[in-house]
């Protein structure tokens, strides 16, 4: 088992208050890694070790929703066709998916490499499964992700983009499950399948049959989206799927009235349903409110560049910065806490300034950054200089 010291590493230590201003206090120390875990922190010189030169140690990042199959990323520039709705985009996939398949291995690899360079050690990846492409995208993604298991963990979602019922994708979804897909995906049971009840029933049935978590994209607006969300809650309860359900986008949570927001947040929290969001800055879902209400929120890029959209960067630090800016989280503590949306809830300090991470026995998946605090990292989008996964360096700048 490997055992070594990281020397001169900067750790956040607490908050210092001074005339109404809060500053993050840090210390330069040494931290020992044994196997895939942190084991001890010691201020006295351990002798040999890797000199981190005062870089700040922070938890590594999680990308919670990204389509790694039908991408233009890494290929020639392509903008989107003008003025098409969801159905227009789906129509495009009939020719596009087979056309893109040959380039997929290289492009998927490029996305994964990008995400590693941006500090991620976990990816929840989405892959089309439908009558057009069958499970070919899934298989390709799986094969490639498997070559990165020394650098990250992943969950691959079989995603019936064309509507589980609408496109009769159930047999293909079943096949993906047989082939080992990690998560049963779903999408807009009302808008696409036009049958909220049966669409969700079929999704959860499949999940129960194969004992897999569920991840449903919900782009339905206001009351329809809210309705579907409530039915997802019902099913989560009925199937006993607490803690195993994610709702992606959940755009209906944006602009919702306070009463409904409170009610749905309570249900989401009670059922431990995660909301994953790419944070549409112009009509954001109320992330800080959800967090306060005990709902797990996770960030994802959704797409980097494809026939739906062309603006994704894969840079979660930038996304955190945008979240902070969007919700006016500009003070030291708020900025630092924003981090949790991209780390599965981990922040070095809690809101009161107590150190929560790293502790011995925490998995040593972390990044080193050129910043004086998490707050600075996020506000100033400072560079990541190294990434470690389970105690091993998997990237350095």
């Amino acid at each position, binding site marked *: 088992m490997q055992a070594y010291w990281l020397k001169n590493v900067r750790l956040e230590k607490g908050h210092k208050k001074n005339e109404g201003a809060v500053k993050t206090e840090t210390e330069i120390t040494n931290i020992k890694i044994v196997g895939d875990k942190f084991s001890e922190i010691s201020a006295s010189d351990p002798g040999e070790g890797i000199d981190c030169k005062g870089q700040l140690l922070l938890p590594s990042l999680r990308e919670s929703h990204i389509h790694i199959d039908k991408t233009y990323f890494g290929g020639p520039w392509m903008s989107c066709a003008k003025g098409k709705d969801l159905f227009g985009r789906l129509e495009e996939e009939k*020719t596009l998916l087979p056309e893109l398949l040959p380039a997929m291995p290289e492009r998927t690899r490029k996305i994964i490499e990008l995400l590693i360079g941006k500090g991620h050690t976990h990816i929840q990846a989405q892959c089309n499964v439908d009558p057009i492409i069958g499970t070919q995208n899934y298989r390709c993604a799986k094969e490639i992700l498997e070559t990165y298991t020394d650098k990250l963990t992943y969950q691959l979602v079989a995603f019936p983009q064309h509507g589980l019922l609408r496109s009769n994708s159930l047999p293909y979804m079943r096949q993906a499950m047989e082939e080992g897909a990690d998560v049963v995906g779903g999408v807009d049971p009302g808008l696409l399948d036009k049958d909220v009840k049966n669409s969700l029933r079929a999704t959860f049935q499949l999940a129960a049959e194969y004992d897999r978590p569920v991840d449903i994209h919900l782009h339905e607006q206001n009351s329809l989206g809210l309705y579907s969300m409530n039915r997802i809650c019902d099913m989560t309860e009925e199937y006993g799927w607490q803690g195993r359900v994610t709702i992606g986008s959940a755009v209906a949570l944006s602009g919702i009235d306070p009463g409904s927001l409170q009610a749905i947040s309570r249900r989401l929290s009670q059922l431990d349903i995660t909301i994953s969001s790419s944070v549409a*800055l*112009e009509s954001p879902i109320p992330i800080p409110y959800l967090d306060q209400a005990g709902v797990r929120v996770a960030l994802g890029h959704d797409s980097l*560049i494809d*026939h739906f959209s062309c*603006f994704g960067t894969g840079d979660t630090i930038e996304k955190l910065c945008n979240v902070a800016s969007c919700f006016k989280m*500009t*003070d030291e503590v708020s900025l630092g806490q924003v981090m949790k949306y991209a780390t599965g809830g981990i922040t070095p300090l809690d809101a009161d300034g107590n150190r929560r991470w790293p502790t011995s026995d925490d998995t040593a998946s972390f990044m080193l950054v050129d910043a004086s605090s998490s*707050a600075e990292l996020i*506000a100033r989008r400072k560079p990541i200089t190294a990434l470690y996964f389970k105690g091993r360096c998997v990237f350095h700048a």
Partner: protein
Amino acid sequence: MRKVLKNVRLETGFQEADLGRVETITALFDITVEGGRIIGLQLAGYAENEGGAVLDLGGMLALPRLVDSHVHIDKTYLTMDFHSTQPTKNIEERLELEAKDLIKMRDSVETRSRAAIELLLAKGTTKLRHHVNVDPYCELKNLEGSLAALRSFKGIDFETVAFPQHGLLRKQCQPLLREAMKMGADLIGGIDPGGLDKDVEGSLKATFDLANEFGAGIDMHLHERGAVGLYTMERLCDLAQARDMRGMITISHGFALMDANPAQLEAMAGRFRDLGIGITSTYPPDRRIPVEQLKRLGVPVKFGCDGIYDSWGPFGTGDVLEKVKFYCMFNKLSDEISLAQALGLATEGVTPLDEQGRRLWPKLGDPADFVFLRASCSAEVVARLPQREAVMSGGTMVYQNVK
């Protein structure tokens, strides 16, 4: 001195592509530059060898110079230790905090401004309009420091707005503004005549009086929402008309335009157009003024970065193109032509092609101001924000990416 820029990618038109998409056509050109201007423009390989230095751009795309039309370089915390933003209850408290900063930071204005300019330059900006605080706290120190910084850069064109951030009447800044104009400020600034000065008519009149005294234009921050914001715009138009200041006035932010109903917006935009009043937006996601309608109604709209990391907020990248990207994202403009046209918000309206794909830029005689990037077209640049590889201003390379 003659210079030939070889293998420069320029946009030459649009063509239809599969799935109903549009693509930009480009070609490689050799551009001859002399006296800061373009004197030759030919397909690559066809330029006659007329001597002079040769610079091979290796197929990089050239775009027009980027213009940041609203930026504060004097107040930045760049070069200092990290400062997050101290929470305040209201604008008065925020201003008090800023006042302390201004006093504390009086002597580092030039250093900090220089860091801000370096950042802007690295993003391709070679022309900027900066608002510099003029108030009882920094007095003329911020003006002095930022001007010194700006003048130390070659190839940066700038306009300086003397900006009474703490309220023109509220802090009786007229004498200081007068001094500022004498020291080299170009425009009279202003801010929320109602919200801050609590005297819309008096504040506007004092602003216009100062401007007229120096024959200068005006660039006023108007953050006020709703009817009072619209009322202030009306009065500003009245004065612009009465004082015959066509084309000399800019409204920055103009958030109240979000609250105008369609008829009000059309009427207001009509007045702006007739009076040549421009709108500059920093396009925050939660306060998106109707840029598209304003443009359609003939109002010139420009973008700027606003504050780059100061006591008002810890964010800011100095990249005016990022604002353009946000504009496209928020308005779901992801098609080739919309993306390419949006570039104009960061170039004072200059785009390589018009909406029909006709070539507009560059032309013979244009200043040799370019941003060079590894990209295939403007649309890609707006959507993907690639690094700025090199920046030329008046025929001189003023920035080169070494990473």
